[in-house]
């Protein structure tokens, strides 16, 4: 029987953690871009568009991420696309992140005083100019802390990509657990590695929030 040293286990998990980080970054950047687009649509005057965005958010916030992953995974296959777990997970987490980020940022835009909209409108700025030069710069200061906080959600969300077969930290932990018959050790390590990724983000988010309120 092959013996695994603690270092073997740890280095294998560290290697797999790269994929967790990569998937998180893709989801965060992609979700941020899509979310920003949705935010602009959310506040546009076009009829029904804002409502459609709020439905989109409702659906993503009212269903389990795990089910969303399955739907994207099998849905893309149904459309005839040859999908890998990585691509499915990246697409799904991007959409998931976009829904949450839009909702977070909506609150931040609403926190900008009404007078700012009226003042900028009285200067004959159109919607795009209002957003770009007046509203978003002010909303952004409020948005930074919750956005960083949401990155923790994303990192934890990537753990579910293991279920559709993407080998990241959680899946690697399962593999180690099965190979070594030491689930206690394996999941403790995995948990600590997630903690090492997430805790600094939580801490940073908290600090930004405190500093803003101070």
């Amino acid at each position, binding site marked *: 029987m092959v013996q695994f040293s603690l270092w073997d286990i740890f280095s294998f998990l560290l290697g797999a953690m790269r994929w967790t980080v990569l998937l998180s970054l893709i989801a965060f950047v992609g979700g941020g871009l899509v979310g920003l687009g949705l935010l602009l649509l959310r506040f546009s005057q076009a009829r029904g568009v804002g409502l459609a965005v709020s439905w989109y958010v409702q659906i993503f916030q009212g269903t389990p991420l795990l089910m969303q992953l399955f739907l994207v995974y099998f849905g893309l296959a149904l459309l005839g696309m040859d999908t890998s777990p990585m691509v499915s997970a990246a697409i799904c987490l991007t959409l998931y992140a976009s829904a949450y980020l839009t909702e977070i940022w909506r609150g931040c835009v609403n926190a900008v005083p009404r007078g700012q909209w009226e003042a900028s409108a009285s200067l004959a700025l159109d919607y795009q100019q209002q957003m770009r030069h007046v509203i978003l710069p002010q909303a952004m200061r409020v948005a930074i802390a919750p956005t960083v906080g949401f990155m923790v959600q994303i990192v934890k969300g990537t753990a579910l990509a293991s*279920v559709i077969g993407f080998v990241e930290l959680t899946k690697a932990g399962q593999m180690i657990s099965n190979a070594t018959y030491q689930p206690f050790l394996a999941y403790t390590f995995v948990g600590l590695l997630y903690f090492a990724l997430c805790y600094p983000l939580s801490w940073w988010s908290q600090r930004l929030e405190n500093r803003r309120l101070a």
Partner: protein
Amino acid sequence: MIEFNFAVVLAQWPMLMRGLGLTMVLTAASAVLGAMLGTACAWARLHGGMVLKRVVGLYVELVRNTPFIIQLFFIFFGLPSIGVRLSVELACVLAMVLNLGAYACEIVRAGLQATPRGQLEAAMSLALTPWQIFSRVVLPPALARIWPALVSQIIIVMLGSAVCGQISAEELSQAANLISSRTFRSFESYIVVTLAYLVLAVALRQLLNWFGPRFIFVSR
């Protein structure tokens, strides 16, 4: 051309109903116990001794910074090797309670801290005991303040319970997994179950918004 066949999925309705039932039971149990644990932890973080504060703080940070699926795997697969063997359902409830407890702790704590100073002084001047002050004066309005946030968190935990299927608890998402492997209609199975979760989430929010003001923080 893509053809959908929802009939074969819906024909498995007894399994869907059983799954729905277990998801509801898991959610109800963990909502009640988790909210109580969260309140106790919030109290401990504000009024407990130094050691207790540290321990609760560590618990909260550990839970909030690791994925639920790892917490579940640790409890179900990890704990037996130190002699703690739990049934599937018990492991799910324990994981959900610990998870909700940590988030509820921070939510309730924020509510407790927002208590106006004058309320405490008024209560003390009436010679109420510390326990009476906490349970009669501080806690009810605190819960009323944070109720929407707590309801949202309970819904998040309910949706998170979909992961319990991964340790083969036969809840709603596991029903989808089983039906999909029986009928080979994966997409349809997951659509049906996802919609069920959506309905459940909306209904649960309505229920709790109705329930809270009437039974949890009764305003007299």
